C-alpha cells in the first residue's frame, strides 16, 4: 500500500511537471501580453519597456528556468493585471467553485443513483422511459441554453430565484441545477446500464433463488457490484466540476476559478493562467488517486501493491 502510494505520488509529480511545461510553452507561443495590457495608444518604446520590465524580452528558455524555479516553491509571480500573487488569486476563487461543484455533484448523486436503480429494476416501463428521456435531454442540452432558460423561467417570469452572484442557498439553486444537469444525466445512464449488466450475473440470480428480498438483492448485491464505474465517473466529474465550470460561472456571475481563468486568458495574464492550470491539474491528479483508493473500500478484491 505504502509503496503503491509513493509510486502514485511520484507519478503525480511527473504529471504536474509536464503540465507546467506544456502550459508555459503554449502560453508563450500564443501572443504578446504587452499588446493586450498596454493602452492602444502605446508607442513602440512603451511596448519595448513593458516587455523588458516583465522580462518577456529574455530567451524563452531563461524565462522558463526562472518560472520553474519559482513555481516549485509555489510562487507563480504576480498577476500582470491585478498586481496580486497569481496563486493567491486562484486559491481565493476555489471555495466558490468548490461550493458549486460539490452541491452540483451531491444533487447528481442524490437524483441519479436512485433514478438509475429504479429504471433498471423497472426496465421497459414508463418509469424507465422517463428516466432515459431525462438522461438523454440532460446530456444533449447545452449548458448555456439550459442556464439561460432557467434564468428566464425562474428568475424573470416567475421571480422565484435570484440569478446573479453568490449569497445564500437561493443564489446557489439555479447554477447548481444547471451545472448538475449534465452530470446527473450521465450518472443516471451509467447507473442504469451498470445495474442491468450486474443483474444478469449468476450471483444475483442465486441470491434471488435463495429467497432474498428483491430490495435486499438490488441494494446489497447488484448496486454494490455496479458501483465501481459509478465511483469512477463521480471522481472524474468532480475533477471536471472543480476545474471551473466556465459557462455556468459566467452565466450566473459566480465568482469561481473558471471565470478567473477565462478572463486571464483574454488578458494574456500569464502568471494567473499558469497558476490556475497547475492548480486544477493538481486537483485532478489528487482526485484520481482518491478514486483509485476508494475502489478497495467498495471492492474487497482490489488491493494495492
Amino acid at each position, binding site marked *: 500500500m505504502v509503496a503503491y502510494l509513493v509510486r502514485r505520488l511520484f507519478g503525480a509529480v511527473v504529471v504536474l511537471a509536464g503540465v507546467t511545461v506544456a502550459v508555459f510553452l503554449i502560453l508563450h507561443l500564443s*501572443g*504578446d501580453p504587452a*499588446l*493586450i*495590457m*498596454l*493602452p*492602444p*495608444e*502605446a*508607442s*513602440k518604446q*512603451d*511596448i519595448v*519597456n*513593458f516587455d523588458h*520590465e*516583465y522580462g518577456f524580452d529574455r530567451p524563452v528558455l531563461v524565462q522558463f528556468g526562472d518560472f520553474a524555479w519559482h513555481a516549485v516553491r509555489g510562487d507563480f509571480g504576480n498577476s500582470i*493585471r*491585478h*498586481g*496580486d500573487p497569481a496563486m493567491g*488569486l486562484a486559491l*481565493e*476563487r476555489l471555495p*466558490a467553485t468548490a461550493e458549486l461543484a460539490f452541491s452540483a455533484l451531491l444533487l447528481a448523486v*442524490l437524483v441519479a443513483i*436512485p433514478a438509475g436503480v429504479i429504471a433498471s429494476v423497472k426496465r421497459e416501463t414508463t418509469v424507465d422511459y422517463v428516466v432515459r428521456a431525462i438522461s438523454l435531454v440532460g446530456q444533449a442540452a447545452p449548458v448555456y441554453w439550459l442556464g*439561460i432558460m432557467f*434564468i*428566464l423561467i425562474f*428568475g*424573470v417570469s416567475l*421571480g*422565484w*430565484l*435570484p*440569478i*446573479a*452572484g*453568490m449569497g*445564500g*442557498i*437561493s*443564489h446557489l*439553486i439555479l447554477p447548481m441545477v444547471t451545472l448538475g444537469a449534465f452530470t446527473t444525466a450521465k450518472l443516471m445512464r451509467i447507473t442504469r446500464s451498470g445495474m442491468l449488466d450486474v443483474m444478469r450475473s449468476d450471483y444475483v440470480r442465486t441470491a434471488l433463488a435463495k429467497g432474498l428480498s428483491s430490495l435486499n438483492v438490488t*441494494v446489497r448485491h447488484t448496486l454494490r457490484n455496479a458501483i465501481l464505474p459509478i465511483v469512477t465517473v463521480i471522481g472524474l466529474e468532480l475533477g471536471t466540476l472543480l476545474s471551473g465550470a466556465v459557462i455556468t460561472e*459566467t*452565466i*450566473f*456571475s*459566480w*465568482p*469561481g476559478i473558471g*471565470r*478567473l481563468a477565462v*478572463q486571464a*486568458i*483574454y488578458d*494574456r495574464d500569464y502568471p494567473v493562467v499558469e497558476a490556475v492550470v497547475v492548480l486544477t491539474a493538481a486537483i485532478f491528479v489528487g482526485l484520481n488517486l482518491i478514486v483509485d483508493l476508494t475502489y478497495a473500500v467498495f471492492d474487497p478484491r482490489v488491493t494495492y501493491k
Partner: protein
Amino acid sequence: MRRRVLTFLLAIMFIGGVSLGAVRLATAQSNDVLTISQGADTDTLSPLTTAVTPSSNVFNQIFDGLCAHDPNGKLVPALATSWKQISATKWQFNLRHGVKFSNGDPFTSADVKFTVEKVQDPAFKSQKADRVSMIAQVLTPNPYTVIYVTKKPSALMPGRPYDLRIVDAKYWQAHGDAYEVDHPMGTGPYMLKEWKKDDHLTMVANPNYWGGNVAIKTIVWRPIPESASRVAALQTGETDIITNVPPQNADQVANGKLTKLGTAKSDRVLFIAFNTQKPGIQDNVAFRQAINYAVNVPAIVKTVLGGHGFPLRNGPLPPNFVGYDPKLPSYHYDPEKAKDLLKQAGVNGPLNVVLNSPSGRYNMDKEVAQAVAGQLQVVGINATVQTQEWTNYVGQVSHKALTPMYELGWGNDTFDADGTLTPLFTTDYPISTWGTPETDKEIADARYELDPKKRAADYAKIQETIFQQAPWLFLFEYEDLYGINKRVAWQPRSDELIVCKDISWAK
C-alpha cells in the same frame, strides 16, 4: 432508506423556501442601495496601475483627479480649483484647500507629486506611464500649488489631470504598493466597505467628501459577464444599472415594466482601415474613395445597430472634439460614383479582397463587417469577412499584419484631435497603417502648437488631407446603451464613465 431520502428532500425544499422568502424581502427593502452591473469586475482598486474602463468606473468613485470632465467633455475643477500655463513648459495648478483623505490625512501638493512620480516609476509598471511621460518634473512651491514642467513646450495639458487620480502619499508609503490593490485611500465621494472579487464590491458615502452629500449612500458593484444574464438581472430588479445592453435587447429594456433605456453618444468610432503600408490595391486613393462611396452607412446603422449609432463620414473625429473642423465635406452613398472610381483605380472585373474583423470586441462588430461586404458586392467587390477573437486580432493590428482592410474601433477620452491622429495617422505608430512625411510633421507640430487658433487651422488642414486620402472607410460613432431601473435618475455619459455622485433616486 426511502423515508430518509424523502425527509432530506423535504428539508431541502423547506430551507429553500424560507431563504427565497428572505431574498424577496431583502430586495424589497434595499431602497437605499444602488446596484450597478458591468461586464467585468475591477482588476484592482489602486487607481495608478490600470486604464480599462470597467475598473476606472469603480475606483474613480473613491479617488479624485485634479480636474474632471463634465458630461459634455469640458474640463471642470476637482482637486484643483484653477490652472493655467505660466510658461511654454510650465502648467500651474492651484489646489483646493481643506480637502482630506477619508482617513483624515490632509490633501496637499506632496500627494500630487508622489502620484505622478509613482506612475512614472518603471519599477511600478503602470499601464498609465505613457500618460505622464510628457512631465519632466513636478514642482511643489507650497502645499497648495503644483507645477508640471513638461519636456517640450506643449499646448496639451500634461499628465491628463482628469484621468490621473491622486492617492494619499503618506498612507501609500506606509503600506506599500501591494496593499493598495485592496485597500484604497482617496478623497472621493465614496469609500470601500467590502470587496469579494468577481462577486460584489460595496462602497459607502464618504461623510467628509469635499463636494458635499451624495444622493445614493451605498453602491454595490455586481459584475455580470454574460449580457443575457445582465439584461435578465435588470428585469428582475436584482440590479439597477447595466452597461452594454445588446442592441437586440434595447426595445425590451426600453419597454420593460421596471426598466428604461439610457443612451449616450459614445466617443468611440468604428471604421475599416486600409493597410497602405502593405502592397496591394488599397494603395490606390481612387480605390479607397470608391469603397467610401460604395457603402451605405446610414442603412447599416439602422439595420445592424437598430439605429443606435451616428454615421460619421467626413473623417475620424467626432464633432465634439477639440480640433474637429465642421466645414469638412462628407462621403455619401453613391454606387455609380464608386464604380467610376474603381475604373480609375484600374479595377475592371470582379475583385476579391479580405475584410478582417474582430469578433465580440465591439457591439455587432462582425455583423457590421458582413453588412459592408454585402454592399461592396453591388459594385463588383467580393469581400470575404475573416473574423478572429480579439486577443489574436489586436496582436496583428499592432504588427500592422492585417491587410488589405481591417475593422477597428477607437475611443478617445481626451476629446482632443491629437489622441486620434497621433496613434492612428502617423507612419511609425504600431497601430497606424497610413501616413506621409508631410502629415507626420503636421500632426507632430499641431500637438505642440501653443496658439489655439493656429492649432485649429493646422488640424483643419490635416483633416482635409485625411478626408481626401481616405485611409479609412469612415463608418460611425456608437451609441452606448444602458439599462436603468425606473427608480433611478441618471443620464449616461459619452466617455463611458459612470460617475456615481451624479446618480440619484427618481422622484
